[in-house]
Structures are given as structure tokens and as C-alpha cells.
């Protein structure tokens, strides 16, 4: 661990997380490809993970050894993996039947 790492404050991590989250939001809102959208969701989940870890590390105080934040981040990663598996399976199925995965055109349930 270099000393530069210790110069980082909670704020730096939060700014990184916020940036990452906004990239994720932008991806979800603007992109039409289902795979990209799912990737963007992963980005947002990871931004959340970074926030959890940053707070855990920065404000843990004397309970620093409890690793509560880290534990939570692991759970999030697990859930994200499950979600990605299911989501990708759906996307693949949709792509097989439709030959595309453009969410704007997946309007079978509309009307």
C-alpha cells in the first residue's frame, strides 16, 4: 500500500461511484441493445458496490474489522451474477427468435 492510497478520502470514492452510476444510467436510458443495457445495469450495481465499500472503509471507526460493507458487496456481486445469467438467457432466446435484441422493437405485449 502506497501512501498515495491513504490520501484518498471517502469523497474520492463517492465521486468515482457517482460517475460510474451515471454512465450506467445513461447506458440504460439511451442504448437500445439489450446486451448493452444489461452491461449498464452491471455498471450501476458496481457503482453501488464501490459506495458501500467506501463508506465501510471510511466510517467503520473501531469496528473496522467487521467487514460489513465488504460482505454486502459480495452479496451484491452474487445477485448481479444471477441476474446477468437470467437476463442473458432471455436476451439470447429473444435474439434467436427475432434475430435482433433491440428493446424498442420488442413490443409484442403492447396494446
Amino acid at each position, binding site marked *: 500500500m502506497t501512501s498515495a492510497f491513504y490520501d484518498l478520502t*471517502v*469523497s474520492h470514492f463517492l465521486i468515482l461511484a457517482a460517475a460510474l452510476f451515471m454512465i450506467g*444510467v445513461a447506458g*440504460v*436510458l*439511451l442504448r437500445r441493445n439489450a446486451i448493452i443495457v444489461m452491461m449498464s445495469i452491471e455498471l450501476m450495481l458496481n457503482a453501488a458496490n464501490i459506495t458501500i465499500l467506501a463508506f465501510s472503509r471510511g466510517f467503520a471507526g473501531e469496528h473496522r474489522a467487521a467487514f460489513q460493507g465488504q460482505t454486502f458487496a459480495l452479496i451484491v456481486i452474487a445477485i448481479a451474477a444471477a441476474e446477468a445469467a437470467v437476463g442473458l438467457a432471455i436476451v439470447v432466446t429473444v435474439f434467436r427468435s427475432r434475430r435482433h435484441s433491440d*428493446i*424498442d422493437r420488442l*413490443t409484442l*405485449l*403492447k396494446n
Partner: protein
Amino acid sequence: MEKTSKLLFLIPLLPLAGAFLNLFVWRVLSPSTGRLRQSDKLTHYTAILSVLAAFVLSCYLIGGPLWEQFNVWRKLGEGKPEIMGGLHQSVWTWIEVGSLKINLAFRLDTLSAVMLLVITGIGTLIHIYSVGYMHGEKRYPAYFGYLNLFTGMMLILVLGDSLPVMFIGWEGVGLCSYLLIGFYFDEDKNANAGRKAFIANRVGDFAFLLGICLLFYATKSVNFADLQSAASISALKDTFVGGERMAFMIGLLFFIGACGKSAQIPLYVWLPDAMAGPTPVSALIHAATMVTAGVYMIARMSFLYAHSTTAMAIVAGIGALTALFAAIMAFAQTDLKKVLAYSTVSQLGFMFVGVGIGAYTAGVFHLITHAFFKAGLFLAAGSVMHAMSGSGDITKMGGLRKLLPRTHISFLVYCLAIAGIVPFAGFFSKDEILAGAFGAHAEGWAPLYGKFLWAVLSVAALGTAFYMFRLYFLVFSGENRADAETKSHIHESPYSMTIPLLILAAFATVIGLIGLPHLQGVHLPTILHDWLAPSLVNFERPSLLDAKGLPSVGEGHASDAMTLGLMGVALVVGMVGIAAAYALYGRGPSAKVAKMCETELGGEVHRVVYNKFYVDELYEASILAPFRATARFLYEVVDRFLIDGIIVNGSAYIIDVLSRLARWFQNGQVQRYLVGVVIGGALIFYFASSPKLGFKYEQKAGNLVEFRPDVGEGMDAKGALIEFDFDLDGEPDHSASFVPGQDMIVPYSFGGEGSYKVTMTMTDSVFKKKYKVTRTVHVKGPDTGREGGAQ
């Protein structure tokens, strides 16, 4: 002394039951094939028998209990009107609200007895006549049902013990009149005539209703017995509204009601149009009974009118004008029934003069005689039209004397009766009104007002004789002017039609004898006067007048010479009228008349009279046109534009626009929903993280002030640095970290009394962002401690 009779309610109930059977049972049972069938017989037997039963029952009650009471009254002396209270029956309590209690009660006194006999007697004859006249009519049960309903309503009208009960009948007859005028509603003209009658009546009815309300307001009672109590009379007499007695206001409202129902100026316009109905209806409703309801009502309210000579003057004046103008309008009519209609209006005018000058008996007397000869005239007209294939155009008639002998002889009798030739009925009744008018004078009237009424009526009587005999000569003498087709069908009507005609003619000849003139030299029996005396305020009987404390009207008994002289004048007037008619129309339409109409003046006069003084056009311009314009405005602007355009379609348009907006969000794309989620989330964070910064202060002892920072609920507040600058030098004078849950108190002593600017700064611990708030703090002198607070 009022006797209770248990049978009284049956008199109106019987015809009403007949109406129920006809309208709701026989009408449903009979298919409309237009031929006399079994059910048609059932129909007219039901109708005739129910009215006949009412007639028999009336005769029984009048000849029995009422007659007995009348004899007792005559024996015990005339100063005791309370003896002659009539028969009375209260069926049930109809309305009871506070002090207002209205029973559905009937009352048979001498006045209603007369009306009762006229209605049920003539009614029975007309029902019988209708069997022949309406033969083959498709809506036969409906016709008889309406006729029965009318009879029942009319009986309720005359038997009602209180004004509201009378009003039931008043409205009921109006309804039946409407239904029967518009009986042949397949033609627009007839349906419109019905509507016109209904609306003109409604104007009057409204005034009548207002009159009842005002009367109740003034006297707190609505039944005839209570209204004549001393307290009520005093309320009518001694309360003044705008310079006139209460009796005047109420009397005027009632008279407007009577104008509507009894076709007086200005509401008479409906009656000539009402001839669109079947002829027996014209005879029963628009000649004998319903249109006389106004006269009856004023006679019934004689105790009220007696207290306002102004109201009486108006009634008499309007009556006289109506009598004259309607008579003139009858001159140029070419329709048989129209002439009779104007004649009816005119004769009703005579009756109103009678009741208006306080000669109530004369008014009612003329009502009775008129009922006989005018009903007869209409029935005879119906018989003539029946013979002439339904046409009533008198220019196409003539020479029917030989062809319709029975109709002719009865028609002649009626004409003599209405023209006032001795000894036929009309002579006595019309003469009594004329003589009454000649001698009439009341407190507050213009001098010679009675003479003026007499002169107007005499001219009207002259006109009456003239137009009636014009009609007679055009129809019955001269050459027949009908086309060959019609001519070949001329036949005398069946006995069911001619027998009622002859019966009525017999009555029209002799009924006048019930009201022979009063002579001082020879005492002639005055049956009607004696009979009606207990029910009317009778100006000819001072003993009764004194008992009720009435103002004097009239000049007492005229001398015999005067009475006979006036009779002579009336007779001459009638003769002159007949002679003039003979001269001009004796042998059918004459060249003289045609020539007169060709001159400029004559043509103009003829045109104005023929067009009935353009009164209908006047109504059209003054009431109907503005009404239509208003209706059009309401339709085009209010309904179509405001309601349809702005309120209905406008609200729909706004919803449409809003829902387009909403639809943009709800388009099924998850991403667009997420935009909402993101924006919403961002807004929540923005507002939640903005601190509501401020501080409170409290002045303690002396100039010591305690400050309490208020940092709001924002999460930034944790560990934030709070700084106070009391002296505006930009440097913090006090600084401390904010710990949530702990009260932070910053004391400071100011230099002295005055206002200071204090700045508080908060710096959040993470982003080092500064929030600043500045307030003016007022420090008071030592004696006035004060608290303050603000954000």
C-alpha cells in the same frame, strides 16, 4: 249550520271512475279499427251513465238536504247567513304544514248547486250527442275518457271547499281542454291550438296560484268558510298594499286567472283557436262549463271583491271591452265555429260585467242561460257540419232550413235566446246585466262609469244579435252554395244528436223564467235570486249587506219605469240587430256587403275586423318573436357554444391534451419509465440534501442574546462546522461542530440597544460546501425582553 253529507264526494268521483275505465281499461281492450264495436258501446255507456249518475245524485242532494236547509233559512229570516252553510264533506287531510291545513273537502251550497246542475245536466246531453257525432272515431275510448275526466275535474272545481281544492279542478279542466283541443293531433294546426290554449291558460293559472298564496299570506286560511270570518275579512279590508286594499291585489290576481280560463282580454286568443277540437268539446268545455269557471270563481269570491271597488271596476271594464271587441271580431268570420267562439268570448264579457258591478246573481244567471243556448248552438253547429261533410265554412252553406228541420228549429231558438228576444232565456239574463250596469255606481268609480258600461254592452248586444242572425241567415236561408258532392250528402243528424238539441232548445226557451226582473209594482217570482242569496254577497239585499259590513254599491232599486224602459231598449237593440242582419244577409251573402267591402274605408275596416284586430300578430311581435329570439340565443350561444362547445367538448379537449401528454410517458418503453425514476430520484436527493438553514435568538438579561442554529434535516449537517459572525467583519466570532441530537447554544453580548446584522455560516464536513444566512437582530432596552425567531 253545515250539514255533512256522505255522498258528496261521489259526484266528482263517478265521472272520474268513468274516465279511469275508459282511459285505462276500454282503451287498452279495444283495437282501433274505426267501427262501432262491442267495446265502443261499453265506452259510451260507461261515459254517459257515470255523468248521468252524477246528475241524478246532484239532483237528489240538491232537492233533498239542500232544499230542506234552504227552506229553514227562508223561514228563519235572511239576516242569518250562517244557517245556510250548505252540505259539506271532508274526505281526508290533504296538506298539513304548520298552520296551513287543507282538507280534500267538498261543499255544496246554492251557488255550486246551480253549477252542478249545469255541468252534469248539459254534460249528460253532450255525452249523448257525442255518441252520434264521434261515431267511427278511432280514438273513441280516449275521447270519452277525456270528456269524463273533464266533467270530474269541473265538478271538483265547483265543489271544492277551499281554493287549493278548487285549483285541482282548475288545472284539471285546463289539462282536459288541452287534450281535447288537440284531439285530432295528426294535424299540426290542431296540436298547436291545444298548446296555445294550454299556455294562455297557464299564464292565468299562475296568477291564480299567486292569488291563493297571497290570500293565505294575508288571512292564514284558504277555505271559503274561514275566509269569510270577521278576522279574514278585516285582514283583506284593512291591510293596504301600495294605496289599495289587500282585497284589490288578491282580486286582481284572481281576475287574471279568470281572464286565462274564461278568455277575457288580453288572454282570450286561445278560445277561437280551441275550435280545432271536436264540436261537442267546444260545446261542453268552451261554451257551457270550463270557460265559465272564471265567472263562477269571482262569484264564489264575491266577499273578497266586495271589498275592493277598484278590482270590481277592472273586472267590469275588461268584461265590457271584451264583450264589444269579441262581438265585432265575430262579424267577419266565415267559419261557423269561429263565430260562435267569438260569441262565447263576448258573452263571457257580459258575465264579467255582471259579477264586476256586484250583480253576481245576474252574472251567474247569464252563465246558466248562456250554458244552455251556447252549448246548443255548438251542438247545432256540429249537426250542421256533420251534414255538410265536416266543413264549417258558412260561405258554402245556405238553405239548410228544409234539409235539417230539427237542427234548424233549435238553432233559431238559440239565436233568439242569445240575441235577447223576449221570452227566450238570453233576454232576461242579458237585460239583468244591462240594467245592473245602468244603475251601478260604487265608491271610487268615475261618475257615469255604470252608464258607460251599459252603453258598451248595448252596442255589444246589438252586435251579438247581428252576427248571430248573419250566421243564421247564411246557414239556413237562401240558396245552398255547397258543391254538388257535398250537397248530395246533406242529411239530418241521428236522433242521438238532435234530441239533445231539442232538449237544450226547450231549456233555452224557458230557463229565463227563473230570473224574472224585479218590479216594485208587481211581485214576480225571482227564483234564482232567492236561491243564490245565501251564497253570494248580494248588493240587492241590504239586510245581508249590513250583516257583513260591506261598502254600498249600486243605487238600490230602480223604478219600474226605468226597469221596463231598459228592457224595452234591450229588446229594440236585439230587434235592430236582427233586422240589420236580415237586410244584409237575409237571402245569403248580399251584394251590398260585397260593395261595402270594395270601398276604401269599408275594405280597410273589413280587413282589420277579418284579421281580428291583428291581436294574434301583436302577440307574435311582442311576445313570441322576442321569445323565439331568446330561445334562439339560448340555443345557439348558450347551449351550442357555451355548453356544448366550451363545457362539454372543451373539457374533453383538455382531457385529450393531457392524456396525449400522459401517453408520451406511458408508451410501453421501460427506458422512458426509467427516465421518470431517475428524474424523481434526483429531485428527492436534491431536496433532501439542501439544508434549511437558519437560527433563532432570544434576548436574555441585559444585552446578552442566545443564538440557536437550526440546520434542518439534511444529512450534511452531521459534523458540520457552524460559525457565527456578529460584527460583520468577515471573521467568525464563534465556531463549533454540530452534533445531531444536542442543543447548540451560542451566547453573545451586544454593545447596547439597537439592530445588528448577524451572519451564520455552515460548512459541511464532506464537500466543504458553505451555506450562509444573514439576519438582523433587534436588541431591546433593559425593560423590554423579547423573543424572536425566523428561518
